[in-house]
C-alpha cells in the first residue's frame, strides 16, 4: 500500500475574509506515511491541515477553494457531510483538550456517537485497544474512571491521540501535538507517531525542524501562504532545492 496517494490537493486557496491565507497548494499525501508540515508562524500550515478534515468550516469567514480529494473523492463536494469525514480523519490539537469526563468516557465517546460498538464488552475492547495503541494503557488501566483532566500534559495528549484513533480513522492530523509538552513527553509522543504510521496516514504540523526530521518520511515547507517545497524528509533537510527552504532550515528566516 505504500506510495499510494491518500490525499491529493490541487490549487487549494484559503481566504479568511479579505486575507488570502493560502495560495495554490498542491500536495500528494501518501498512505501509511508520516508527512510533516514545517514553516514559520503564520505560513498557513495549520490552515492547510484544518482543510483536510474541514475544521475550517466552523470559522464563518473562511473560504476554501480548489480540490482536495481523499481516496479520489472530493471532500468538499456538496454531498459530503463533514461529520462523516471527520470520523475518517482524526485530529489531535496543539493543546491537550480532553473532555472533562473520565478517561474511559473520553475514548469511548467517538465509538459511541458513531455506533461502532454493538455492546459494552465491544466498547470496552475498543477503548482498551485505542489506549494501548496510544501507549497509555499501563499508566491508566487502573483508573479508567478518573477524570481525563487529572492526567499530566503528556498523558493528556496521548489520551487525545487515543480518543482520535478510537474511531479507527484512516488519516490522523496532528497540529503541533508536542508544543505544549516537556522533552520527555515529546519523545514519547514522537515514538508513538512512528508506531502509528503502520496503520494510519499521519500528517503532523510542527514548529520543530528536528521533530520533522525525526518522525516524518515526507516534509512540506510552507512560507507566506505558499507551499515552497515538498519531498522526502532527508532530501529537504540535506539538499533543499529552494533557497527559501535552505534559509529556513539553517535558521536564517522563521
Amino acid at each position, binding site marked *: 500500500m505504500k506510495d499510494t496517494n491518500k490525499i491529493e490537493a490541487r490549487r487549494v486557496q484559503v481566504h479568511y475574509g479579505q486575507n488570502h491565507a493560502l495560495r495554490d497548494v498542491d500536495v500528494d499525501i501518501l498512505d501509511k506515511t508520516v508527512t510533516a508540515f514545517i514553516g514559520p508562524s503564520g505560513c498557513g500550515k495549520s490552515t492547510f491541515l484544518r482543510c483536510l*478534515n474541514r475544521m475550517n468550516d466552523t470559522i464563518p469567514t473562511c473560504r476554501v477553494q480548489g480540490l482536495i480529494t481523499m481516496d479520489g473523492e472530493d471532500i468538499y463536494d456538496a454531498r459530503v457531510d463533514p461529520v462523516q469525514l471527520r470520523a475518517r480523519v482524526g485530529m489531535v*490539537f496543539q493543546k491537550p483538550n480532553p473532555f472533562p469526563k473520565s478517561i474511559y468516557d473520553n475514548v469511548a465517546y467517538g465509538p459511541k456517537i458513531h455506533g461502532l460498538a454493538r455492546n459494552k464488552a465491544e466498547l470496552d475492547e475498543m477503548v482498551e485497544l485505542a489506549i494501548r495503541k496510544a501507549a497509555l494503557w499501563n499508566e491508566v488501566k487502573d483508573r479508567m474512571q478518573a477524570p481525563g483532566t487529572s492526567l499530566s500534559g503528556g498523558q493528556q495528549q496521548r489520551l487525545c491521540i487515543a480518543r482520535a484513533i478510537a474511531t479507527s480513522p484512516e488519516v490522523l492530523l496532528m497540529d503541533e501535538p508536542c508544543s505544549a509538552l516537556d522533552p520527555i513527553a515529546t519523545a514519547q509522543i514522537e515514538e508513538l507517531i512512528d508506531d502509528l504510521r503502520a496503520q494510519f496516514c499521519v500528517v503532523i504540523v510542527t514548529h520543530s525542524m528536528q521533530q520533522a526530521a525525526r518522525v516524518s518520511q515526507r516534509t512540506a515547507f510552507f512560507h507566506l501562504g505558499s507551499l515552497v517545497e515538498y519531498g522526502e524528509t532527508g532530501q529537504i533537510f540535506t539538499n533543499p532545492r529552494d533557497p527559501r527552504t535552505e534559509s529556513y532550515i539553517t535558521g536564517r528566516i522563521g
Partner: protein
Amino acid sequence: MSGSLLIQDARTQKRHAAERRFRTYGLLAISLAMAALLWLLLSIFSQGMPAFRQTFLTFPVTLDAAVLDQEANRNPAEMAKITTIFYGKHLARALADEITALGIATGTMTAKDIGAMISEQSAADLRDRVLADPGLIGTTISFTALANGRIDGYYKGRVSMASAAKDKNTSPAKLALADKLRAAGVLTIDFNLGFLTRPDASDKRPEAAGLGIAVVGSLYMMLVVLVLALPIAVGTAVYLEEFAPRNRWSDLIEVNISNLAAVPSIVYGILGLALFINFGGLPRSAPIVGGLVLVLLTLPRIIIPTRAALKAVPPSIRDAALAIGASRLQTVTHHVLPLAMPGILTGTIIGLAQALGESAPLLLIGMVAFVRDFPAAPPAGLFDPAAALPVQIYNWTQRGDPGFVERASGAIIVLLVFLLVMNAVAIYLRRKYERRW
C-alpha cells in the same frame, strides 16, 4: 540623581497618599452600605417578627343542638342558614361563661364587650368547623379563638392603656380583663401558623390575615416561569451562541435582548394586560397570567447569563468534539451544555428570584384583588384568582389598621427567606459544578 532608598521621595509619598485615600473611600462606602443594610434588616425584623406570634383565647364552647341545628336533622343546607353573627354571639356567651366559671370579676362589662375581645374571624372559623363536621353538634369542644387585633396589639406593644382609652374599638377595661385571662391561662401567645396558612382578611381583622394564598400564588407563578422560561431561554441562548450566523440580524437581536432586560417591569405588566387578558382572554388575577408576564420579564434575564456561560466554555472542547465527528448539536448537548450548566442554573435562579420579588406588573393584571378562596391544585388552579407575596406586602401597607404594618413586615421577612433560600441554592449549585476544565 540617586538618593537613599531608605528615604521616600516626594513623588512616592504622593502616590502612597493617593492609595491610602482610595482605600479610605472604599472602606467608607462599604461601611455605609453595611449600615444601611443593618438598618433595613433591624427595622424589618423588629416590626415583622411579632407577626409570627399571635394572641389566642382558648375556652370550652358547647355546641348546643337546639340552637345550632333547629331542624335537628344535621342537614348542612339547613345549618348553613345560621349566620356568622349568630355564632359570634354564641362564642361571646361561651367566653363570658368561662370567665364567670373562673371567678374573674368583669366589672361593668357586658357579654357584648367580652365578645369584642374575640376576633370576628373566629366566629366564621367556628361556623366552618361545625358545617364541615356536623357530628360536633351537641358536644363541648375546646375552641381556640383569635384575640381581637387590639388585644393582640396590646401584647405586642402597639396598644397601651392610654391609647385604648381614646380608642372606640377597645377599652382599658378589656385590656385589664385580658391580663387576668392571661394569668388564668385562657389567653396565650403562641407561634402564629395562621400567618403562613390563612388567606388575607378584611380591614377590620388584621389578626386573621395570612399569607397562604400569596405564597401559593407566588409558587404557582414560579412554576409557570420555570417551566416556560427556562427551556425557551436556554434554547434561545444556545441557538444564538452556537448556531446562528453572525450577521446584522443576529446583532440586532442581541442588542434587543440586552435592551429588554432593562425595560421597566411595569411595561411588561401593560403588555401582559393587553396580550394575555384583553387579547388572549385569560382570567384576571390568575397565576397563569402573572406567570406569563414574569416569563416575558425573566426571559432576557436568563438568556444573557446563559449566553455568557456558553461563551465561557473553552472552544478547545468544541474543537475536540467536532474533530471526533460529533455533529454540532451533539457537541452542544454532550459537551457544551453540561459544562455551562452551573452558570445557566445560577442565572435561572437569580432570574426566578427577581421574578418572585416583582410587584409592579402584577398590580396591572389584577393580582392585587382581595382573594379569600385558595386556588385549586395545578394545572386548573393556575386559572383561579390568587395573590402574590410582593403584592400582598404592598396591599397590607395600604391598610389603615396598624396590625397590618406588622403583617406587611412579617411578609417581607417571608419573602426575604424565600429569596435567601433561592440564592443559597444558586451558590450551592455553582460550587458543586465548579468549572472542571
